[in-house]
Structure formats: structure tokens, C-alpha cells
């Protein structure tokens, strides 16, 4: 589904290279985890895939079901089925959460040539999805993420994912800032979305999240490259021994 080939990325404004040849293939129905020390390029990878400004791709490609992502606008990538759950969800004062969700859903549907969802159907849909994530009505009435706790923000990300039903979900350190209960709730939300047509790329520092969202494949990223790939046991090894030993072992 997602195919990243020899991706090289530098910062647009300065001569700082961040990704130095990332190769990664994620098949439909699979959950891949990317782990790695601070500054290894994990979050940059998620931003570049979703189309954030400030990065320059100097080489390589990234395709979603064969379509080149890197040439698309962020909204086109979203309509194509890509979703990034932000590490730091953005507060937008003055824009109601409901308005935001409905605008996003209908914009994507329109871009794909599908009929827009009526206000009534939308309300029903949101209520149903929100209830399963224990998001109360008051949160929906507030402006996007404004006054939300860390846990509420992350749950709101998962709610967006549940509504938009993307094919390829990237979770950027969704566990950061969450207590154990909140993490479980978020993980349940993610697990409920797992199916054969959908893939996940879970970026995390810690193995803890992967106890709840069981990955099929674990990658270790360091210095702008994927240096090691293995099964869930790789995450346990990181937890036990830290990155230094593992990276020394592969000469990275």
C-alpha cells in the first residue's frame, strides 16, 4: 500500500539533511512500528509523507497504492487515503470541532466524487464514533482542540481517523503525554479500525504502546535511515537494552 523508496529529505531553509535514503513498504492490513532515538528522522518522515512545508525532497519517492504522494497537495493526500495523527494536535480557536470534522469529511468525499454526508447523518455518525472513544458532547461543541487535555487531543485525533476512514494511518508518537488509561483508550480506538484494507505506521519511542497495538513489523530508524527490521520482539529488545547496543550491533 505505502511504498517509500530511497527517500532523501533536507530542511528547505538550511543545509541540514534529515532523511538519508529511507526504504519502507507497508502492505494493506499490516501494522508497522517505527522506533528510534530522538532526532533519527521519525517525525520528519511523517511530515514529509503528509505534505508539510519546510522540507525538500532531494531524491526518492513515496507512493500510496501506486500514486506518487510527494507531488500532491496535503489535501489531495488526505483524499487519497493518507492520515497523520499529529504528535501535537493543533488548537484552532474560533473553528468549531463539529464544523471542522464535517468540512473535512465532506471535502474528502467531494474530492473522491462521492456524495456529501447530510447534517443529520453526520451528527449520528459522530455521536456513535465519539461514544466509543468516550468523547463527550461538550468536547464536540468546543473549538478544535482548544482547552482539550493532552488525552482529549489524542482521542480527537483518533476520532478524526475513525470518521475519515483513511487507508493508510500514520500515528506520530500518539502515546506521548498519555497516561496508561488514556493510552488504552486510544489503542482500542486504533485496534477497532484495523482491517484488511487498512494499514498503520506507528511511530513511537516506547514499546509500551505496542503492547496495546500489536505490530506485525518493527523498524528501527537511526540517522535518517531504517537500520533494522524485525518482528514484535525487536520492540521488546529496545525496551530491555536501549538503542545504543542495538545500533552498535548494526554499525549505525
Amino acid at each position, binding site marked *: 500500500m505505502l511504498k517509500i523508496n530511497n527517500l532523501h529529505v533536507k530542511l528547505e531553509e538550511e543545509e541540514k539533511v534529515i532523511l538519508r535514503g529511507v526504504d519502507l513498504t507497508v502492505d494493506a492490513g499490516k501494522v508497522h512500528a517505527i522506533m528510534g532515538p530522538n532526532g533519527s528522522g521519525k517525525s520528519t518522515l511523517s511530515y514529509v509523507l503528509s*505534505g508539510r512545508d519546510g522540507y525538500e525532497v532531494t531524491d526518492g519517492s513515496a507512493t500510496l497504492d501506486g500514486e506518487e504522494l510527494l507531488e500532491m497537495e496535503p489535501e489531495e493526500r488526505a483524499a487519497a487515503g493518507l492520515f497523520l495523527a499529529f504528535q501535537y494536535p493543533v488548537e484552532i480557536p474560533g473553528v468549531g470541532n463539529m464544523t471542522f470534522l464535517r468540512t473535512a469529511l465532506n471535502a474528502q468525499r467531494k474530492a473522491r466524487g462521492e456524495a456529501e454526508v447530510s447534517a443529520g447523518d453526520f451528527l449520528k455518525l459522530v455521536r456513535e464514533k465519539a461514544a466509543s472513544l468516550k468523547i463527550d458532547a461538550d468536547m464536540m461543541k468546543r473549538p478544535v482542540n482548544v482547552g482539550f487535555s493532552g488525552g482529549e487531543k489524542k482521542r480527537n485525533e483518533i476520532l478524526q481517523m475513525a470518521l475519515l476512514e483513511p487507508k493508510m494511518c500514520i500515528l506520530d508518537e500518539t502515546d506521548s503525554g498519555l497516561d496508561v488509561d488514556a493510552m488504552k483508550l486510544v489503542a482500542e480506538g486504533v485496534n477497532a479500525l484495523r482491517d484488511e484494507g487498512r494499514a498503520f505506521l506507528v511511530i513511537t519511542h516506547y514499546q509500551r504502546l505496542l503492547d496495546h497495538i500489536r505490530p506485525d513489523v518493527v523498524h528501527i530508524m537511526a540517522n535518517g535511515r531504517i537500520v533494522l527490521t524485525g518482528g514484535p520482539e525487536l520492540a521488546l529488545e529496545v525496551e530491555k537494552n536501549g538503542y545504543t547496543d542495538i545500533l552498535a550491533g548494526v554499525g549505525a
Partner: protein
Amino acid sequence: MLAQAKLDALSARIAGLHFPSTGWQGKARGHALERLTAMGLPGRRDEYWRYTDPAKLNAAHVQAKLDASDVAFQDAEALKIVFVDGVFDAAASDDLALGGVEIARLAESVTDLHWASDIYGVLEAQGQMPVERPFAVLGTAFATDGILIRVTGKANRAISIIYRSESDTSDVILHHCVKVEDGAEVTLLESGDAAARLLTVMEVDIAPAARFHHVRAQGRSHHRVVGTHIFARIGEGALFKSFTASINGVMTRNEAVLDIAGNDSVAHVAGVCVGDGGDFHHDDTIFITHAAERCESRQVYKKVLKNGATGVFQGKILVKPGAQKTDGYQISQSLLLDGDSQFLAKPELEIYADDVKCSHGSTSGAIDDTALFYLRSRGVPQRRAQSLLVLAFLAEALAEIEDEALAEDLRLRLESWLDRHEA
């Protein structure tokens, strides 16, 4: 400008105007002409006109290409009063009859003992201190017509003044008076491009426990020139609320002079403007005097400026000695959609009482790129995302409108402007 130059400017400006000296306002008009002759018209070196060049308001003649008439509040349940190029259009207007309200026209009210003689030119003259406002005096002296509204009960409908324009050279001066008696309440709407150039004065006298709501939509011809003045006297326990949405215009100067005279009263003025292009100029000039105890005033102004547009805000809160427990708030903000637009703000507080709460803030900013990316990453197209963020910026001001249907009407008009003026 030298004194002589100011007087020359005045002579040129009024040379072609008819001076209506008869009727119950004759005396007030005469006094106004005397006052005007003493002050002349403003020049660029006047402190009060430092950020706004009065040339377009001073000019002896005017010519402006106007777009098709565009009138807001069409769906509002309101008594409609229509002016075309400043001339009352009886056929297009409703009967000037409304329960709890007396409505008359300035040009037709000839009786000597008129209730409006206590207001006409009186509140305006009081508002000339400490800063002269020559165009308001001009409006008192030379207005050709206007609406006189006396509210004695709770008006069961709003009053909607609709300005249409057909002539590219129309130069219109109107003067309205509103008196809201004890405990009475009314909503006044104004909308439309009135003329190539429009000068208005509105004097509002709000008696104790009365409530006055004013919502105005100025737009959307790009070349129109507008100078407006509101002078309000607010009595004990009374409420005054005025909101102005301004779309386009090469010269708009909206002045509001509020005299908070009675204890426990509330005065809110707010506005939004959107402008595109180096010749767009919009100025809000506010002067609020707190002369009573436990009163609240609020100024909320938001401007969206692009392609070299200019926005000006001059807002002053004066708290007089003894006006204890005053609660004054002022915010003026601009959203600059490019590096060429500019926002000039002069917030002022002058406080002579020691137990008051006054705050003011002014900011200029750009669209938040992070928020824009967040919206786009969820599939919202760039233009729509921008327009959502601009409307979010304007929301605090629009929230000042109590009637949600009116607010929604203006919100949609602003949204359609944003759609047409892609950032």
C-alpha cells in the same frame, strides 16, 4: 493644513450644496454652519487624520464606479425604508408605521415643536470636544434627508434602512436621529452602497433602561467613499450596541462617539472589515467617555487586509473623575494576508478615577501556517481552510451581534467575499 487652506477646502466642498435653512432644524443647521466655518475641513497634518487622508471626503466632486447594489438583511423581519442615491423612495419603502415607534423623515418634518430638536445637532455638537469632527458638523448643516425614530415601547420589528445607488456621481449627506424612551427597545439595520460618496450622522439618545441595537453592512463596491458618525448618549441602566461589517471601499471612516452618562449602563461597539488592494482604506475611530459609575464599554474590531490594503483603528476610552467601577475593554486586531498590507492602531486610555478596570490590546498577525496545514492534512482544500481560519479570526467580533440570524447573514457575506478574493 493652514487655517486658510482648511477654509478654502470647506468653501470648495460646500459651494455646490443647497443649505436647507427652514423648519424646526433651521436653527441647529445655522449653528452648525457657524461652527463649521470656524473649523474648516481637516487636513493631513491634523493629528486625528494622521493615518487617514481626508482628501476623498474633502473633494468638491466625486465620481466612483459602483457595483450592482448588494443589500444585506433581506430576510430580516423589518420595516424597510429605502433611499436611492440619498433620495427617499416611497414606493420601495414600507409605510412608516410601526407599533411603539414614531417614524418621520427629516426632509418632511416641518412642525416647530419637534421632539428631535433636543437631539439634532445637539449630541453631535457635544461630541466635538475634545476633538473636532468637521464632517459631522457638515452633516448637521447640509443633510438633505434622514430618518427620525422615536421609540416609546418595544418595537415589534426591526427598522431597516436600505441604501441603493444608481448614479456614479451621487454625493449624499444624511442625518438620522433616534430617541429610545424609558424602557423601550429597538433594532436598527443599515445596509447597502448609498452613493458614490456617503456622509452620515446618526444621533442616538437612549433613555434610562432603554435598549438600542444597531447592525450595519457597508459594501461592497470597491470605489465607494464613506464617512459615518454615531453620537450616542446612554442613560442609566441602558444598553447601546452597534456593529458594522464593512466590505471593500477605497475610503471608509466610521466614527463613534459614545457618552456613557447614566450609571450601570452598557455600550458595545464592534466591527469587521475585509479589504483587498492597495487603494483599500478603512478607519474606525472611536471615542468612549465614561461619566457614570459601574458602566461597561467594549470595543472589538477585526480587520482582514490583503494586497497592500490599509486598516486604521483609533480608539479611546476616557474615564472621567468619579466614574468608579468602570469596566472598559478594547481590542483591535488585523489579519494581514500578505507582507504589503498594513494596520495602524492607536489605542488610548485616559483615566481619572481610581477604581476602574480597563484593558486594551492590539495585534497584527498572519494566517497560522500550522493550523492551515492541520486543516489541509484532513482534506480541507487550501482556500476553504484559509477562509475557515479568517472567519475564526472574525468570530469574536461577530459574536457581538445578539441576533444570530443577522450575524449569520454577515458571516455568509464575508465568506463569499473570501471565496472571491482567494488569498
